């Protein structure tokens, strides 16, 4: 693994990079350009950047209007205020008319850190994936985040992209990486259990697989960067071939990737699924590193939970 970079940094850089390639790309923010990193785009293309002020509902509506004329707007804020506060605007002004609006939501999950529970959105994936036609992407590292931005530009329809504040290891190779919308990535093969991860849990899951391997347990690791549409094929294949699944995500265990995997597995190939994420509770203030450790985002914990999934096999 090479150095660490937050996916929000990669998001800002990607917007500025693709702004040159796609002239109909425009960016909106709600007074958080310095934090969401859309400021990087603003610097490169000031005429195509629109600050909407602290008014997220209006920002989403403006984005819908811009999209209706053929532009490709990326509307950014923290996940809490994009998916949370503006949920109904996204649902009715973007989702229902299936407009080509991209929502670039940063500061998702508890790795927001010190700002605490009011700013740590653990519900956004649950909210966004219930909207018909919405694509939900949660990239795992900087390389994947950059590629996801271009995939979203090339996809005609609403997309929700989730980025983190916290620097995470870059494990994909920029030169060779190919992003396929809606396709999971099998990062490591294994026969005893599958760890399905997304976003910052992916690199932790890889470490957990190493720990399991040292105990003689063969763990498969799948990176789900596109939570909707879910790659059911790769999930069901894992269910069939490994017989037990741990889903690890930086989101509430209610309604996120864990739920999406359970929905697919329950109906089509029932095997035990252990969900790991934020339990039904709010986060708290603290450094991201400390919080991740406190809430169990560690290789040791993932390995333990993977073993629990194995123990549930009939």
């Amino acid at each position, binding site marked *: 693994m090479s150095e660490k970079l937050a996916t929000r940094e990669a998001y800002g850089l990607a917007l500025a990079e693709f702004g040159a390639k796609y002239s109909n790309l425009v960016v909106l923010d709600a007074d958080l350009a310095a934090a969401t990193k859309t400021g990087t785009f603003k610097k490169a293309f000031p005429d195509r950047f629109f600050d909407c002020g602290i008014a997220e509902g*209006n920002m989403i509506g403006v984005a819908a209007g811009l999209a209706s004329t053929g532009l490709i707007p990326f509307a950014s804020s923290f996940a809490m205020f994009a998916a949370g506060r503006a949920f109904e605007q996204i649902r009715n002004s973007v989702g229902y008319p299936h407009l080509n609006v991209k929502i670039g939501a940063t500061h998702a999950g508890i790795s927001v850190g010190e700002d605490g529970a009011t700013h740590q959105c653990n519900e956004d994936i649950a909210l966004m994936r219930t909207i018909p036609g919405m694509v939900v992407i949660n990239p795992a590292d900087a390389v994947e985040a950059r590629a996801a931005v271009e995939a979203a530009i090339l996809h005609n329809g609403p997309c929700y992209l989730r980025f983190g504040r916290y620097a995470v290891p870059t494990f994909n190779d920029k030169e060779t990486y190919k992003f396929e919308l809606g396709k999971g990535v099998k990062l490591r093969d294994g026969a005893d259990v599958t760890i399905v991860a997304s976003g910052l849990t992916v690199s932790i899951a890889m470490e957990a697989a190493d720990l399991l391997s040292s105990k003689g347990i063969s763990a498969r690791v799948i990176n789900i960067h596109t939570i909707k549409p879910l790659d059911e094929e790769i999930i069901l294949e894992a269910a069939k071939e490994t017989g037990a699944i741990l889903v690890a995500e930086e989101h509430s265990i209610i309604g996120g990737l864990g739920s999406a995997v359970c929905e697919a597995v329950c109906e089509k190939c029932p095997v035990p699924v252990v969900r790991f994420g934020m339990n039904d509770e709010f986060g708290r203030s603290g450094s991201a590193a400390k919080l991740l450790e406190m809430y169990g985002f560690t290789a040791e914990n993932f390995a333990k939970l993977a073993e629990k999934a194995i123990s549930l096999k009939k």
Partner: protein
Amino acid sequence: MDKKALAKIALDIRKNAVSAVHAAKSGHPGGSLGIADILAYLYFEEMNIDPKNPTWEDRDRFVLSKGHTCPAYYAALAAKGYFDKELLLTFRKPDSILQGHPDMKHIPGVDMSTGSLGQGISAACGMALSAKLRGKNYRVYSILGDGESEEGQVWEAAMCAAHYGLSNLCIFVDFNGLQIDGPVAEVMNPAPFDEKFRAFGWNVVVIDGHNFDEISSACESAKKSDKPTAVICKTVKGKGVSFMENNVAWHGSAPNDEQFATAMADLEKIGAEIDA
């Protein structure tokens, strides 16, 4: 187009809107009757549009922010030739393109899906902003409800339009003074509109929303201004149907057969007066 011809079109919109609501046994006749004159003027006099090419890139845009009054909107679009008038009688039926609130994906001529109040005006801002960015000359029109203006998003959009100098945006505020729970002044008073929009940095014109001369001069004022324009329209909810006028009971309920017959007779009488 002369005022008599416009009056006939507005009457046609009223008749067809009430007929659609009657056929659906559901819908919003009061507000629909109130905005018929504004719609007639916009669609038959003001807007640069082509019903044969509803997605023409340089067309003027229209957003019905108060989406529930779509019976009149659909009637105006049908009158203009965007689709067959027969379709109006399928309003609110499951297999109809004419959904209970405007659906841009399926209805020719609808520029934005609306219905959830306070959202259309933001989309209108986005359309106007796009024209400014791309050097396009089209203009954007919208009708906003007085009750709708209780939504905070309306004022977020008002700030945004002035901030970005959206002089190509013209909003008609349908000030009929009534909302579902009663008079707006009693439910949650959004007035005064003129002072509020002026304070937000808009060009403001106050008119009688049933007077074509005044609607016309408001549109001219909007074109001359370097600010977005709010046209505060004093209107009568239920205009043209005696028992619906200024009666909040007709905000969102359909007339029965007998009431429908009375309504049509009222409107026929207006037709005879126009011809006289």
